[in-house]
């Protein structure tokens, strides 16, 4: 469509990723085995991590806006723009969590590397635009995508906490996180985030169903993406139940959180591109 056009969003994308890279680097540097040193390091490094990740979010917002102006539609169609948009929204939600809940800050060493999966992936993709399907002008698209972003972001925060519990399971790494609250508290907070994720997951499914009814004349049809998203919702609900029904070790429940996040990740960035769903609208 825009062949030969200058990809104006790329410098902003690189700058945003650069800011995230520095934030990642500093959050690892802030780890220390010694308790007193940890307190000093967190005091000196954490404000920089916060500032850099906020800067990254702003730069990615500019990248998204530039792209929007260039190709004439929002970041909803191809994998490249979906990844940039998630890099922005995951970063945004995590930056707010990092800012408001200082006790959770060491989760950055789990969360940022997870974000980097998207960061590296996006660099390998072609930034060309794709046609905007006519059914994407629907206002429910915004609700669906917006709720979905919060769902994934809260799963990511939950995974950050679960990741710390799992890392602390290794004797080698345990001392790095000793200034954080006990596992039982991390576990409780992690599952609070997962409960919040379930609220937004449910909202995403409902908004998606309303949109599907408008766009394709049915609210639910077990297409690949719907089924995958439903299984993800069910796994989350079942895990919450299993935890309430049985005494399950925190290690296992932490693994469950990571599995739910990975499942969500594959649903988002795998299914729509593996399956030639009705979303495309050619002919």
């Amino acid at each position, binding site marked *: *469509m825009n062949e030969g056009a200058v990809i104006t969003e790329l410098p902003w994308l690189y700058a945003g990723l650069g800011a995230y890279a520095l934030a990642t680097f500093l959050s690892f540097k802030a780890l220390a085995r010694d308790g007193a040193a940890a307190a000093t390091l967190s005091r000196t490094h954490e404000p920089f991590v916060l500032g850099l990740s906020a800067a990254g979010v702003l730069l990615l917002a500019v990248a998204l806006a530039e792209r929007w102006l260039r190709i004439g539609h929002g970041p909803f169609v191809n994998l490249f723009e979906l990844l940039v948009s998630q890099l922005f929204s995951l970063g945004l939600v995590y930056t707010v969590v990092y800012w408001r809940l200082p006790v959770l800050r060491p989760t950055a060493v789990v969360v940022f590397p997870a974000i980097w999966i998207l960061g590296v992936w996006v660099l390998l993709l072609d930034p060309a635009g794709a*046609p905007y*399907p*006519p*059914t994407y*002008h*629907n206002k429910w698209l915004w609700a669906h995508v917006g709720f979905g972003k919060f769902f994934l972001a809260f799963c990511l925060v939950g995974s950050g906490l679960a990741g710390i519990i799992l890392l602390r399971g290794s004797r080698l790494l345990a001392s790095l996180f*000793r*200034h*954080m*609250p*006990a*596992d*039982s*508290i991390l*576990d*409780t*907070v992690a599952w*609070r985030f997962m*409960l*919040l994720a*379930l*609220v937004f997951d*449910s*909202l995403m499914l*409902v908004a998606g*169903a*309303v*949109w599907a*009814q*408008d*766009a*394709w*004349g*049915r*609210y639910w*049809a*077990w*297409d*690949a993406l719907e*089924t*995958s998203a*439903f*299984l993800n919702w*069910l*796994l989350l*609900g*079942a895990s919450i*139940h*299993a935890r*309430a*029904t049985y005494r399950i070790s925190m290690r296992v429940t932490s693994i469950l959180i990571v599995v739910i996040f990975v499942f969500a990740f594959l649903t988002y960035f795998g299914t729509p591109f593996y*399956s030639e769903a009705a979303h*495309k*609208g*050619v*002919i």
Partner: protein
Amino acid sequence: MMKRLRQLASLRLTLVGMGLLGVGAALSYDNPVGTPVWVLVVPLALLSVNLFAAILSNPHINRRGGLLLFHVGLLLIVVLAAVGRLTRMEGRIELTEGSAFAVEDLTEVRQGPWHAGALDRVEFVQGPYTVDYTVGMARGPTRSKVMIPAGQGDWERRTVGDDTPLVLEGYRFYTTFNKGFAPILTWLPDHGAPVTGSVHMPPYPLFEHRQANRWTPAGADEIRVWLQIEAGMNPEADWRLDPANTPGVLVVRAAGDRRVELRPGESLRLDGGTLRYERLSSWMGYKLYYDPTLHWLFIASMIAIFGLAAHFWRKFGAVQAYAAAQEAAKNKPSDEMGGRAA
């Protein structure tokens, strides 16, 4: 009685039901042909009974307002989805420009045994349509004009298409990519009254190279026709499919395998009568969907989510209180902070 209810309400059964539902959903992934609906219905029925029993008998759920609302909402969704399947109707219809919706023209009709809508009260007339295409033949907006009776002989014009269905008496009509050209023909038999009809050519531009069909007017032999159109189709540029402004030449097979070209208004003498090509028109394929539970389903989901959010809020308050207590005991070593909060 109560003991039986508690057994039915077992949370272990919930997990079994969820597992079975997961298997059912996985089997339904991408709708493989041959997966029976039972793989979903059986676990859903089991979960509904289990949940109903739990709501009646388990204080963990029925004494906590938000959680109760959430689970009641879930139960309602399952019940409504089931009622929806029993009362729904689906079908397809191709409407020629200028013609009115007629129930008899519906095809691929599937309806639940309890379907009882007022389809016979649905009235509208198909008008012209346009469809925009962008480079690479990606379909852009479809604008299909329809007219619906507005009382006292007046007509209301509406434009429908893509994510804007025409909704009449609860029946929802969606435009589809299935649409094309329709030459209007009149057969003037040597003896008897003339008949006018339309021939729906194969979907355009999907079958751009196969614009052919047959027409058999009552009492006459089959007539084979082809269409040569200048629709401006161009895979390398943006273009608009606009049948109302598309010139089209009709090619008819006459005696001796001769092919004769007809322009609008021209006639051709055939065995037993004369064929007149009146004009080029169009047809639009609609998908019909009716489900009286749609709005209720939405309300039930909102109730459920509201309940879940309220439950979260209450629990979140508990975490904050817990965190405040931790803050107070800050000087103690972290390992003593333990105790798993519910």
